């Protein structure tokens, strides 16, 4: 039996799922609140900038983007299989997991160039 | 016709067959061992055994005590050399199962736990909650998978044995999926096909328990021994006959009439033991035959409970409490809830005696060999001489291990001598038998299979039941003969080959009728009352002078069974009184 490399994606999926369960709804409520509460975007930008000075804060922000990306990519990838939508593994896997990786990299680039 | 060859063929994948296969593979890994069964091995009826499996393990217990209980329980009709061998090897087989992964129930310190069982003076029944047979069977099946020497033919139905030069040389079987007949030649054949309680209307047995192996041997002239001894289990569910294990009483359950009275004290099993403190061999822990007989008297006296599904008494577990019931008897609780809609924690379970176990079977010597060279028999289909006139609960699962191993080793020894017959030589007789089977498949007589089966089951219940009355016995014998004649006029509707269960049931009915014939003739011939064989009207007492003997039923060509007698091996326990409860008074009246 050939060893599957699924543990990598499953670990990321699991971490993302846990993160989304613990802060997902709260995060979405928070961004919805922006509509009513933000009066001064400049001030908010400044507050957030100072907050993101610390590398750990940047890492946390990265996690909030990257882990849900992997989580959702993983589910959608398997969902296509469930829906009998097939294609070469390299293509579908590349699209979902590769996409999540590329976007996470971009996110890291933007965050760490602040 | 397909053709195969093996060193050893084992018919039956229950506890006995699997244990034999493993023993053969261990004693000679070079052999080609074929395990053939009409159901996947884990479906075998060993799976239904609930209570437990005997083996001396407590320091204050002894092999002698186990020996004495077995011999007395069997009303001195046990071959004592066999019992001796059995008690000496039972514990080692239980340990072997433990080493193979069987989840025996434990004490808090992690050592083996044992429970009380009917007729045993000391707790020596190993158990795996109330699914002992299930765990034993699955452990054996899973363990058998690790031996490359063991091949399986699952869902192959054995229809005939093949005999060449006075030796059993193989068998004929139907591959149930294709319906094709297959000749299998072998140096040794082990029959491990289980019991035959399906000859009765109400029984604790699965639909597959149809006495096939007994009939297969009987038809080849091998005697069936002690067939009149059929054990009724005192606690089956009314209607279906599904078993409520004796362990329910071992754990402290009590039997009562409709008004809550513990009637067993009136039948020489008293004095009444305190609730929740069962005493070995007393009251509810008396032997099964006595308990079933007590029910019969209560029913005659009109003190039973009328349920939708017939008369019953109550098995009351309520005083054990939910926690103990859930820990020790979870399956019982589930069964009662599912099949009679009773939660044992809050209500008593209605129960009644149902046919359960065939003490008799294919006659073998103490090494499991039959009188037909090359043919061995083991497990419930065999009569190795262990159970006598009444089997003690938990001795039969232990028998599967002890004698299953022995049968496997014996067959392996024989197979190593290379006595195999060229399958080509078996072909003519195999083809003749196969043609008979084919004819049955397309038979278009007027008789209906289900009707014949039901008539047989009711006749056996009436004539060869808990109590045997001469007129009814004779009526049953006539009825069986009539049914055998009508069997020749059977009409089957299916006619196809692939998984034709009507065809297979018709063959099974043929087996059942042969077994019923042997049972009823042996019952009539035994003119005494002993163990499970009770003739209250004409021969109410045991008669050692004439009947301290095994009955042997042989099939007569074209006629009924002929019964002859074989001496019982007695080594150290002279026949005595069976002693239960505080007194030895028999069937008293209130």
């Amino acid at each position, binding site marked *: 039996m050939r060893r599957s490399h699924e543990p990598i994606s499953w670990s990321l999926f699991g971490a993302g*799922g*846990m993160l*989304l*369960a*613990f*802060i*997902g*709804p*709260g*995060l*979405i*409520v*928070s*961004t*919805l*609140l*922006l*509509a009513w*509460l*933000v*009066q*001064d*975007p*400049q*001030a*908010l*930008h400044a*507050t*957030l900038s100072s907050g993101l000075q610390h590398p750990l804060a940047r890492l946390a*922000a990265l996690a*909030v*983007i990257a882990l*849900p*990306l992997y*989580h*959702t*990519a*993983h*589910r*959608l990838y*398997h*969902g296509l299989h*469930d*829906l*009998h939508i097939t294609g070469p593994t390299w293509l579908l896997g590349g699209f979902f997991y590769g996409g999540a990786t590329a*976007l996470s990299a*971009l*996110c890291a680039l*933007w*965050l760490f*160039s*602040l | 016709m397909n053709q195969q060859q093996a060193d050893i063929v084992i018919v039956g994948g229950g506890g006995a067959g699997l244990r034999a296969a493993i023993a053969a593979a261990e004693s000679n890994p070079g052999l080609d061992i074929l395990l053939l069964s009409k159901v996947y091995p884990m479906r075998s009826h060993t799976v239904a055994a609930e209570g437990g499996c005997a083996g001396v393990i407590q320091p204050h217990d002894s092999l002698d005590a186990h020996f004495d209980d077995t011999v007395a329980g069997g009303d001195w009709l046990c071959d004592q050399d066999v019992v001796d061998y059995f008690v000496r090897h039972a514990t080692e087989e239980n340990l072997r199962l433990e080493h193979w992964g069987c989840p025996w129930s434990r004490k808090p310190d992690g050592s083996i736990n044992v429970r009380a069982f009917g007729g045993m003076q000391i707790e020596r029944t190993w158990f795996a909650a109330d699914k002992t047979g299930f765990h034993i069977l699955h452990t054996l099946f899973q363990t058998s998978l690790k031996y490359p020497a063991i091949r399986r033919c699952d869902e192959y139905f054995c229809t005939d044995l093949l005999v060449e030069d006075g030796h059993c040389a193989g068998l004929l079987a139907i591959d149930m*999926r*294709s*319906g094709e007949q297959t000749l299998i030649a072998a140096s040794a054949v082990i029959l491990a096909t289980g019991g035959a309680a399906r000859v009765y209307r109400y029984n604790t047995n699965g639909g597959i328990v149809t006495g096939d192996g007994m009939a297969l041997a009987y038809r080849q002239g091998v005697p069936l021994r002690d067939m009149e001894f059929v054990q009724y289990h005192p606690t089956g569910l009314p209607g279906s006959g599904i078993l409520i294990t004796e362990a329910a009483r071992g754990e402290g359950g009590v039997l009562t009439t409709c008004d809550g009275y513990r009637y067993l004290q009136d039948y020489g099993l008293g004095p009444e033991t305190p609730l929740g403190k069962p005493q070995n061999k007393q009251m509810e822990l008396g032997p099964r035959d006595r308990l079933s007989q007590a029910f019969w008297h209560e029913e005659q006296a009109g003190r039973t409970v009328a349920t939708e599904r017939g008369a019953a008494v109550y098995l009351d577990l309520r005083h054990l409490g939910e926690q103990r019931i859930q820990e020790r008897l979870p399956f019982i609780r589930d069964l009662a809830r599912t099949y009679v809609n009773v939660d044992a924690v809050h209500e008593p379970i209605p129960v009644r005696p149902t046919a359960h176990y065939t003490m008799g079977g294919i006659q073998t010597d103490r090494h499991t060999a039959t009188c037909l060279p090359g043919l061995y028999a083991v497990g419930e289909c065999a009569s190795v001489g262990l159970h006598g006139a009444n089997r003690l609960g938990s001795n039969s699962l232990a028998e599967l291990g002890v004698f299953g191993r022995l049968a496997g080793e014996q067959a392996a020894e024989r197979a190593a001598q290379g006595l195999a017959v060229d399958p080509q030589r078996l072909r003519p007789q195999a083809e003749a038998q196969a043609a008979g089977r084919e004819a049955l498949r397309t038979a278009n007589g007027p008789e209906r299979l289900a009707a014949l089966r039901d008539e047989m089951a009711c006749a056996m219940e009436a004539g060869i039941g808990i109590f045997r009355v001469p007129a009814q016995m004779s009526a049953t014998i006539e009825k069986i003969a009539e049914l055998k004649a009508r069997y020749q006029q059977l009409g089957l509707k299916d006619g196809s*080959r*692939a998984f034709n269960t009507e065809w297979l049931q018709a063959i099974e009915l043929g087996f059942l009728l042969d077994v019923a014939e042997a049972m009823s003739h042996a019952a009539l011939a035994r003119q005494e009352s002993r163990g499970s064989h009770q003739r209250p009207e004409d021969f109410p007492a045991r008669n050692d002078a004439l009947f301290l003997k095994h009955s042997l039923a042989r099939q007569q060509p074209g006629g009924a069974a002929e019964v002859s007698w074989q001496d019982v091996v007695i080594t150290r326990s002279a026949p005595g009184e069976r002693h239960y409860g505080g007194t030895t008074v028999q069937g008293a009246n209130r």
Partner: protein
Amino acid sequence: MRKPWQPQQPRDWWLHNPAYRRYMLREATALPLMLYTLLLLAGIFQFSRGEVAFAAWLSWMQTPAALLLQGIALAAALLHAVTWVALVPKILVIDSDRLRIDPRQVLRAHQLGALAGNLGLVVATLWLLWPAGGA
């Protein structure tokens, strides 16, 4: 003669059984959650480009389309959280000779954690954004 019938799983298998429909709904939460994550990612991009771009993102987040997506994502996130936490005790089983934790405790801990995490985040946001507060 054997000629087994070989069934084929129909493409719409998941429509035929309520348990399958529940499963597919659970898996489908991934789609709005992914889109929402992309919105956030866009926010980070705009944030990195400066105040003006960030303000544009903020006001775009208040368009009906964006609000609708956030609404759906919220429903999806809630369903995800509930189903996820319920399954944790089946996966995360702590039971060794040295340490044993009752699965009910594991469940309780995760329920509390999720509640605390989500509420805490909302409270922190309110505190941060409240007109009189931090920003």
